[in-house]
């Protein structure tokens, strides 16, 4: 009930200002652009969506940072956090309500991209199984990045700082999964294999299996546990003000 109260206000807030629309349109525009132009989709002989789903999480790093930047920083700046924290709603309910609002906008945006696989279906015969797992992966990766963004937003009063830090964090987290980056990190730390260890925490490696059309419980556990951790840190960041 309390989560619903927070969710409703926060969700509406996305559409009170043009920011959500702008970022949604920019994101959708980029995705379509990538698909139809960069990949020479119409020239490819098989209706392969792999590259599309590989590109999506990279765009998500900025998109989710944009969705989460206001969540907490604006409350801090306006002083409304003081209001929110003195009504009979527990802080974890506020954390979850806000997060779910952002997640809903993310889900809506993802839903709007289905025009792409539909187009593919019209001109070719795509592997629907891979498209479904591709979407599951994209959603899970977006959910994780959004949770990280929300946590970062709770650490600052400045939306722009939140946007920047969250974007960079997202890109770094993704980059850890690139083989070349992992190898370089390994070299840097000598025989400790730090790169291999860090690579495990990158969404990239877990998306890989999903993009191949494989649903693995370990990947789901990875995304869900890391998302939960980010939200827990978010809660800690909010409660820290008390002391």
């Amino acid at each position, binding site marked *: *009930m*309390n989560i619903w*109260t*927070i969710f409703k*206000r926060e969700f509406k*807030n996305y559409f*009170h*200002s043009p920011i959500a629309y702008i970022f949604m349109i920019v994101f959708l525009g980029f995705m379509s652009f990538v698909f139809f132009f960069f990949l020479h989709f119409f020239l490819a002989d098989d209706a392969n969506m792999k590259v599309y789903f590989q590109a999506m999480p990279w765009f998500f790093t900025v998109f989710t940072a944009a969705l989460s930047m206001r969540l907490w920083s604006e409350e801090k700046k*306006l*002083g*409304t*956090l*003081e*209001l*929110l*924290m*003195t*009504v*009979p*709603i*527990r802080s974890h309910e506020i954390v979850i309500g806000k997060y779910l609002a952002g997640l809903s906008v993310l889900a809506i945006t993802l839903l709007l991209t289905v025009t792409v696989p539909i187009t593919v279906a019209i001109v070719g015969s795509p592997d629907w199984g891979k498209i479904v797992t591709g979407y599951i992966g994209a959603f899970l990766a977006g959910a994780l990045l959004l949770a990280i963004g929300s946590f970062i937003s709770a650490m600052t009063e400045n939306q722009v700082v939140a946007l920047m830090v969250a974007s960079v964090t997202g890109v770094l987290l993704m980059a850890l999964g690139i083989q070349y980056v992992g190898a370089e990190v390994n070299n840097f730390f000598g025989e400790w294999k730090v790169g291999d260890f860090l690579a495990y925490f990158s969404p990239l490696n877990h998306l890989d299996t999903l993009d191949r059309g494989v649903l693995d419980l370990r990947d789901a556990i990875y995304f869900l546990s890391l998302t939960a951790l980010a939200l827990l840190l978010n809660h800690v960041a909010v409660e820290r*003000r*008390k*002391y």
Partner: protein
Amino acid sequence: MIDVKTISKRFGATVAVDKVTFTVEKGEIVGFLGPNGAGKSTTMRILTTYLIPDEGTAAVEGFDIVAQPQEVRALVGYLPESVPLYNEMRVEEYLYFIAQARRIPLRERARRVEAIIDRVGLRAVTKKNCGNLSKGFRQRVGVAQALIHDPPVLVLDEPTSGLDPQQIIEIRDLIRNISAEKVVVFSTHILQEIEAICKRIVIINQGRIAANGTPAELARKVLGGIRFRGRVQGGADEVRESLARLEGVRDVHVEQQNGTATFRLVFTKPEDPGLAFGRLAHEKGWPVLEASTEKSSLEDVYLAITRTR
């Protein structure tokens, strides 16, 4: 009631609140007075569970602010100093949100929102965005959100700051009218305001309670007595002599002005100085032109306390 016991709060090296203790009973309006940065807001934030004290305990209507914050929050209406409004929300929409957050049942929500809109005088701006309101209306929306759930305890941090005199009087009347059955704590640095509404004053300086009592009690304690002044028809010498002989009277100054004597004195006894003076004037048969307790007493108290560093 509010019961605060030796709470302290530090931010890094600065001590914002230092062993503050006070109680506020039902039906009482208590004014927090003090210079900026004295610890008024921090004390209020602790009372409303926004902050946790480093030491000490506080209870609101018997609920502990640290152990039972949800219960405390449900009982308190709070207007923070920053007047927290969501700028992109319409006034009505904002009040509905607060009503829902305050868990006012759905079937009652519309009635409560409408009632508070009328009570606080927001009818003209219900469809406006909070971000486009004038300072006076912002403040009123802030007061409305604090009152919407009809809380038994009200904590208002500078409810009249930035308002014009007419608006100040309106907010003042509002506070006075709702206070009969409630516990009200509010802060200000306008001295006249506190004299106009509060039964009791708590002066906070450098994180500590420097004084706590009715304006008369504070005047007696800090200035050694209440200032009283008047003008009677009669000779200055006789007036001076008679007044000085009254019990509890100090520092008598008299000036002669065309057959009348204007006097000022300090009255140290706990009774009303007007009563003692009235008896004397009656006994002496002095026609009294004017006589009153000096309103500036509180200002002197305040300055005397906050100047000592």
